[in-house]
């Protein structure tokens, strides 16, 4: 019997699992990656030497902690379905398997937003998050000479990481101005360690002579005989392109425009979600301990709203305490006593995370600037012009848009395009994002090999319901 299933073994999920286990709950922790750690504390894949970093060291500590605990950790398991009564189906190394428990903590973290521009789907153009994956798991840069662009703290981390891995950085193009960063210094002071690292990245980039371009966006990338040519364009504070610009030659572009909470499981389970107009994203509506509107379902970490890696373990522990209490395994007094220091620390950590989220929030001019021919849904090749045409025909909500254009119908199930498509619809009709809606969550959460679903079988093994009427 399992008391609690935790999906996602990043900092939030690991902390939740360890805390719940320490309280005596039988915990299963599932993750699709080969080792626990999540994106921030991703384990080296063993393909190439990876330079040491504080995140990697913490990752080792976390994995050691899991190994020494009673948590049943199942990395390498891709969850493809979660039912209303918390049956969790996954594909593992040994094939299909499932667990069921009265409580479920979703700790699936964030995913990257990329505002579409012509050429963003070319080979060699990757997300900032994908670049960190290459750097952390394999110690390898996306290219020999990489343009790093977008917004938020990942810019510095990726650019410095590329230099450390022996790559060249063609330029760093940041949507924000130095003043935008400076304005957030007081909040960032909550984490002097991270602030110092940020300053270290900047110094390293300057020493290497990397051009740091502020209030600058990638307007277009095209393939050339030898690599990629990016046209950079200055922008105003709202992200609107201004006249002028430069051209940068590179063989890779790492670009990202902030993070979105991963809401696939909470959408699937039809819990209440709220649109955060400041951060510019949707997340499940939660109480302070991570309880969702569905009894027994909790969200911890960035999946419940972007607050950053420092806040994540605190949110994980709070959700574990709430789950233990709701399961009758912890009395209210004990929960409050244990949660109080976590809540204090969370308030501080979340301040830093929210300051970063503010830097990554989409600017209105970015959506406006998407060119008509730019592909928004890369699975189905749906352009902005096609989305606008469907809106003009009367699609006001993203699921109708999906039906009429196939935007979001491909293998990624709208993970990549959903937010942009909704922003375009809302803008077209002058309606709130709430009215433009969210793609309905559907299983499988990731494409599911049909042969693994069926297994090997004979015709007699198929249990048939009664025949349809004549």
């Amino acid at each position, binding site marked *: 019997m399992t008391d609690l299933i935790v999906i996602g073994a990043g900092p939030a999920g690991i902390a939740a699992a360890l805390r719940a286990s320490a309280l005596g709950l039988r915990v299963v922790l599932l993750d699709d990656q080969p080792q626990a750690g999540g994106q921030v504390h991703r384990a080296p894949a063993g393909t190439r030497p990876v330079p040491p970093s504080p995140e990697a060291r913490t990752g080792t500590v976390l994995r050691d902690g899991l190994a020494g605990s009673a948590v049943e950790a199942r990395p390498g398991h891709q969850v493809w*379905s979660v*039912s*209303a009564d918390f*049956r969790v*189906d996954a594909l593992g190394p040994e094939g299909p398997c*499932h667990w069921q428990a009265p409580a479920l903590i979703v700790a699936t973290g964030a995913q990257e937003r990329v505002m579409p521009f012509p050429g963003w789907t070319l080979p060699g153009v990757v997300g900032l998050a994908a670049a960190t994956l290459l750097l952390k798991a394999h110690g390898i840069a996306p290219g020999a000479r990489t343009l790093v662009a977008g917004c938020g703290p990942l810019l510095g981390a990726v650019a410095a990481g590329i230099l450390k891995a022996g790559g060249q950085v063609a330029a760093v193009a940041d949507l924000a101005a130095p003043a935008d960063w400076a304005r957030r210094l007081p909040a960032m002071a909550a984490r002097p360690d991270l602030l110092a690292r940020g300053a270290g990245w900047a110094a390293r980039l300057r020493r290497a002579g990397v051009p740091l371009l502020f209030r600058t966006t990638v307007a277009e990338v095209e393939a050339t005989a030898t690599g990629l040519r990016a046209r950079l364009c200055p922008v105003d504070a709202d992200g609107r392109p201004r006249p002028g610009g430069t051209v940068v030659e590179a063989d890779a572009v790492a670009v990202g425009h902030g993070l979105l909470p991963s809401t696939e499981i909470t959408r699937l389970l*039809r819990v209440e979600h709220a649109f955060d107009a400041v951060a510019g994203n949707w997340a499940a509506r939660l109480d302070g301990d991570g309880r969702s509107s569905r009894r027994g379902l909790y969200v911890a970490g960035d999946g419940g709203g972007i607050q950053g890696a420092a806040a994540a373990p605190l949110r994980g522990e709070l959700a574990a305490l709430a789950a233990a209490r709701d399961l009758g395994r912890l009395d209210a007094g004990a929960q409050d006593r244990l949660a109080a220091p976590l809540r204090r620390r969370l308030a501080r950590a979340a301040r830093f995370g929210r300051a970063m989220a503010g830097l990554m929030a989409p600017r209105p001019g970015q959506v406006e600037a998407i060119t008509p021919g730019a592909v928004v849904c890369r699975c189905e090749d749906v352009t902005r012009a096609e989305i606008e045409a*469907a809106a003009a*025909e*009367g*699609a*006001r*909500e993203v*699921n*109708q848009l*999906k*039906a*009429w254009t*196939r935007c979001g*119908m*491909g*293998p990624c*199930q709208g993970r990549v395009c959903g937010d942009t498509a909704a922003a375009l619809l809302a803008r077209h009709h002058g309606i709130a994002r709430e009215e433009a809606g969210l793609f309905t969550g*559907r*299983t*499988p959460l990731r*494409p*599911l*090999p*049909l*042969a693994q*679903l*069926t*297994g090997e*079988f004979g*015709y007699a*093994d*198929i*249990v*048939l*319901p009664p*025949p*349809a*009427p*004549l």
Partner: protein
Amino acid sequence: MTQRFDAVVVGAGVMGATTALHLARGGMRVALVDRGAICREASGVNAGTLTLHMTRAALIPYAMRGRELWLDAPRWLGMDAGARAAPGLSVAFTPAERDMLEHRAAARRQAGAPIELVTPARARQVEPGLNGDIIAAAFCALDGHITAYLTGLAYRRALVAAGVALFENAPVEGVDSGDGGFAIRAAGATLLRARRLVLAGGVWLERMLGWLGLRVPVKCLINQLVVTERLRPVMRSVLGIANGLLSLKQFGNGTVLIGGGWQGIGDPDRGGVEAIPDNLIGNVRLARHAIPGLAEARVARIWLDLESETADALPMIGPLPGIEGAHVIGCAHSGFTSGPYMGQLLADFILGREPERPLFDPARLIPPQPAASLESIP
């Protein structure tokens, strides 16, 4: 805000939208009201199977006309909704299924469907992707498939062009009748008045008929659908099994849609909630058994489609007894296939023309009502 119309149609699926379209083309001022967006329920998310092999025998003439209309949509609807003709096969893997296949093919043939029994070898010529283990097959040349998700776009264009007033996202809160007309209270303080009312709410018809004081049980089926990612061509027919528990086709874009009416969890209040794991596996196994090439596919999405059914599993299409000007249309098996035709028949009736084929009198399902129930309607 009060607006007056000649007819108000509640429910913007294929049945309601077709009726509204032909009423407007017949010269009426028409409102079409839906609690959500046009064709976002069964009409937009069904399997898009145009097949006589799975059509109830009594409905075959209607389905044949419906299929023709879908294929002819550019002409009368103004847009290609993705209907394509394809050879239809129904197959049997066991002797019991073979008996069922022969019996059902005969009954449907009698009702007018050009279904013929063919040898397994002939079936494999029609569908090279078919499992060689089949022991019997039936063939129908008049089958096909359609991308149901484009239905709303096609209808919306046509309705707007015909001047139908479309009220989307306007849940009806109640209907008052009297003085030879109806007052339809929709959300947003909109009051629509008309002498004619058409209820076309699919699985919500039981509730809608309740607005008029009528109690007609409508069963809600929760049909599971599965679509794969795009893959190389693995089949070219519309394929089913004698028992009607599989519908299978590959669209032009390479995706394969697996249906067959396996049940999931849901209801009219919550919609389709989730698949039942055993039913999912059973349905997909059946598909893979029929077309072994599907083993290389990946499932992209699973969803559920709500289908309505009356006590005798035949449609309700026609005037409601005892309530002047009120009509109902819905609850047809293969309703998506037949919808463009059935809506036209009801519109003809309302416009005072003789329908080409008989309607399906709802009175047979309605027990005599106490007179009081018709006077005051909540």
